[in-house]
Every structure is written in C-alpha cells, then in structure tokens.
C-alpha cells in the first residue's frame, strides 16, 4: 500500500482540495489516527513527523502529483495549509 491517490504526470499545479486531502491522509496514515483528527493548520512536526520523514514526503508529492518539489519543502512550509498554499497556487516561482 503506498497511496490511494492516482499517479499523475502533469506540470499543472494540483487542485488545492485534492492536495490537501491527500496530505491529510498521508499524515493520518503516518500518525496512525483517523484522517478527521488531522488539522491543516497544525505543524507537521507536532504530529511527530521527523526531519528525515519530512524530506521523503516531498518525494511522495513529486511522484504522486508530477510536480518538482524542493526536498526541504516540508521544513520551510511546515503545515498542510502552507504546502497547499505554495504548490496549488496558480503561479509559483
């Protein structure tokens, strides 16, 4: 079992809701709790996502949504909302 989201090959930014739901699911899976317990404005580190795992999350985003992502994304954008805000925005650098 890897992820429930289909893999895409696209360069367009993902739908914010889809990315947010997928991230909540990943975090819930990680902390082994119901997805409804995961808030999008709480820092991932507070759910116990350590530094190295946060790095691999970026690889998962890349592979699932087909967009290149910096490895330290989850260090610099520490909540689900922050990640969605960056990646799902219509224009990013």
């Amino acid at each position, binding site marked *: *079992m*890897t992820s429930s989201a289909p893999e895409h090959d696209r360069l367009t930014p993902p739908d914010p809701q889809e990315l947010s739901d997928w991230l909540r699911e*990943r975090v819930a*899976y*990680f*902390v*082994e709790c119901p997805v409804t317990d995961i808030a999008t404005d709480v*820092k991932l*580190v*507070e759910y116990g996502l*350590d*530094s*190295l*795992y*946060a*790095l*691999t999350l*970026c*690889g*998962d985003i890349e*592979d699932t949504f087909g967009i290149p992502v910096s*490895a*330290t994304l989850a*260090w*610099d954008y*520490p909540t689900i909302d922050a990640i969605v805000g960056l990646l799902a925005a219509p224009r990013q650098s």
Partner: protein
Amino acid sequence: MTTLPGPPPALADPDLPHPLEQLLGDPLDPDNPLSYDAFLAADERGDLLPAGRALLDAFGLGAEFVPRALGGRLRQADELARVLRPLFRRDGSLGLGHGAINLIASAPVWSAGSPGQRGLLADLLLAGGQTAGAYTELASGHDLVASKVKAARQGRGWSLSGRKEVINNVTRAHAVTVLARTGEQPGSRSHSLFLLDMDSVPRERLRFLPRFRTSGLRAIHLGGVEFDGCPLPESALIGDEGGALESVLRAFQVTKAVLSGATLGSLDTQLRTVTAFATERRLYGRPVSELPHARAALTGAFIDLLIADCLSTTVCRALHVLPRMTSLYAPAAKYLVPLLTQEAMDSLAVVLGARSFLREGAQGIFQKHLRDLPVGSLAHSGATVCQATIIPQLPRPARRSWFVTPPAPSELFRIDAPLDDLDFQRLAITAAADDGLLAVLPDAAEQLRSDPVLGPLCGRLTDSLRVLRDDCLALTPRSATPLAEPWGFELAERYALLAAAAACLGVWQHNRDRPDPFLRDTAWLAAALRRLTVRLGHGPGPDVDTRAVFQELTERCERNTAFDLIGRRLA
C-alpha cells in the same frame, strides 16, 4: 586559483608505495619510530604518537581535505579514502584524531560556507592547523535536532551558550565547527552552523571539559567545550540561519563514504598479521594456514575486505557520478563496512587464538585494532544512525526505480577513471528515484544468465531485490522513521548488502581491461556474491572454488602489497 588537470589519480604506479605509506616506513622494523610497536606504546600511554603527528604535519596532510579550487589536493573522494588508508593501517587514533577529523570539521564549510570562511579554513588546513566538529551533545547524540547549545542574536552577531561533549581534537583545534540552536520552533529550521576561529574567540567565554577516556582508540583526545555567552561575529554563521541540517546532511555523505574506505587499512593490517602468523606457525604437522577452518577464515576476511572496498569505492565515486543518490548510498557503506570488518576481525581472532588478546609481541597490533574498531565505528554515525537514515529513503526507489532505472554509467565503477572534482553543492539531501547502483543487479543477472556459478548467484540477488521492493512498499510510514520496529532496520541491512553486491558486479564488469588478472577473473567475484547471498538469507548455493583467492592472499602477503582493489605496494 586555477585548477590544473594533473594525472588521473588512480593511475599512480602500483609498484610504488603511496608517498604517505613510504614515509610511515616498515611497520615491523623495530628501529622505525612509526612502527606498530611505537604506536602500541603510544596507545598504552593514551596519547597520539608525537612522531606520527609530526610526520602528518610534515607531509601536509591538511591539504588533502581542502578542495583543489581553494589550493588543496582534494578532488576525488575515493582517492582521499586511499590516501588515508595507510594511516588506518597503523593507528586509527592518528587517522581519525589528527587526520579524518579535519574532513568531518571542514565538510560543512565546503558545502555551505561563505568565500571568506572557505578561504580561512583552507589557509588554516594548508598551514598545518587542526580543526574539530562540535556537532553532538551526549544527551541527544546524533538526534541533532534535539541539540541544546544555543546561539542567540546579540547586536550584529551571536552569543553562544551550552556544552558540546565527546568532541574529538577540540582542545588542539584552531577552528571549530559548532552546531547550535538558533530558533525556538520545533522542526528542522531551528539550527545553524558556526565556524569559530579559536584565535579570535574570547577565551574567558569558553571552558574545555575534561577528557573522556575510551576503551579503544585510546590515544584520541575526546573532550568537550562549554560556552558561556561566547560572542561571535555575524560572519561566523555558516550558510543560512536555520540551514544546519541541510548542510550536515550534505557534508556527512562525504565523510561517511570516505571514512568507510579509509578504515579498510585497519582490516588490511589484521589480515596481514594473521596470514603471516598462520603461514609460519605449524600445528598437526602442517602450517595453520593449511587447516581448512583457518584457511576459510583467512579467505573469508580477504573477500570481505574486497567487498567493503568495492562498496566504499563505488559510493565515494557516486558522490561525483550519482550525487542524487548518495544520501542513501553513504549510510549504506558506513553501516555495512564496519559490520563486515568486525566479523572478519572476529574470525581472524579465532585463528590467532591467545595471541589475539596479548598486548605486546609480534601480534600485539591485532588486539589494538580489534579494540579500536567498535569505537571507530561509532565515531561519526554508528550502525543504528545509518540504518535509520536509510529506512525512510527506501520506499521511493522501491516504487519508482528498482527494475526500472538503467544501470549507472561505467565511470562509477572504473577504478582508474578520473572524475570531476567533488562538488558538495550537487549532493541531494534525500535520495531520488534513480538507483543506478542497484540497477546493476537485474542487468547483470540477464547478462550472466548462462554462467553456471555467477548466473544462479545473480538470480538470487535479483530475487532478494524483488522481495526487498515488496517489503519496502508494505512499510508503513511510521516504520520508515527512527521509531521503526527492528523489521525496518533489517530492510536497511538487506539494502546495504544488495548495494555491496551491485558494487562488486559493477567493479568486475567495468575493470576487465585492467592489467590485474585477479580482478579480471571471476574467482573473487563468485566468492563475494556467495557470501553476500548467504548474508541475505539464501542457502549456500553453487560450489565456489576459493583456491585462487587464497593463493592471491598469500602472494600479496609475500609481495607486501595491499589487500584492497588496487593492491598497491606497501612500505
């Protein structure tokens, strides 16, 4: 500073000892001030051999750690490992405490430092200065995020407070790299690195802690330092504020890979000592080396040394060729090489019998290296830290790369092919889905399918890779963290073993035009793959004839050439 092309490094004449080995001289000559006996006596005293330090200073070892673009001699990681190997053949304390420690301390500066910091550190090392890396604290160990030493903003600079413990070489260092907390937030952006010029920090604001004594590597000076509001200029910050973890994750790939290759010198000494003993000593009317059990131990240790050299050399070269993957490869080498070395030494100790624990006499050097190894293995990332670094990086290549990515280019494995200078900036901090090393396994299995020995062995390795892929895909996210169950750690071990097998195959495939007939032949390769498949849990498999391997071992012992891949003459 312009960079000169120079001769390709690995093409040095193998019939001549490395210049550093030459300077160290015959280790068995009682009149040599750098003999094994001299190092043993220094170890008993618990101090670095003064003649050893003087020799390294005269040789200008510091230049080996300075990139060529800054005036030093560092260009290729595998070459640096081979330069350091003669030191570890004598004494790990000197090799680490007056040698490799300077790589550990300087690597983050080469990775993230400003031009000013790089220049300062390069000048210092080129002038024979010493450095130390104050990363760890006893309470948090390698959990660097939990480090408590704090740097607070003060005016236009910083103020440093707290204790760093178990820091090698710190009292002798002219510059110290310090990891400190610079933010209160939890997470990975709250730590920064600082470069302390010990000539300019106010000494009344720091205090050295008493030395920590050790069971092995007794001569190293492990100390500590306590900062009491020690003021630092803004220019001391290495890289960006909050950038420590990133810099360290890059720099420590280089240190792990190079140390894995360098420390093989120690196993060379052990194997040489025991082979000489077993050839001379007679039991039951024949030399000990002709007793099957002893012969198997000697041959096995030689094979393990070759496996370890294939892996560490390949991983060092991957820093240049596959820098997107070395965050996975480097901890695999740093995990597996000490493990293979420890087990080889343990089986050699059985051959040596009571002499394996005598602290003097012709085999006295053996017990020293045996005691040194566990300490040296833990110094700078022990096995558990390395496994915990590997585990979270496995699911991605398992999902996207294994059985998909083509094998790495031949320059990864060609031991005499020059590479572009080491570039720390290119090292990725987490592995991409581009595992060109493991891709050697299914490719070789296809090519060698009809070989009666290598074919089945490669088939087993490919089976193991398939099982590992399935197991990695089944890994829950939580088990891919330092909180992993033992199961996750076992996956990391299997990955390292498969990486070693791929390295052996790659080295064999891509060096068949070299003059050395032993390396071209399949005897060592078949024996290596067989040992690795057994470690992976397979049965003994096809019979492998190791007579040629044993013969090579005894010939190298007589010719006084190294047991590693290059087999260069020794002093």
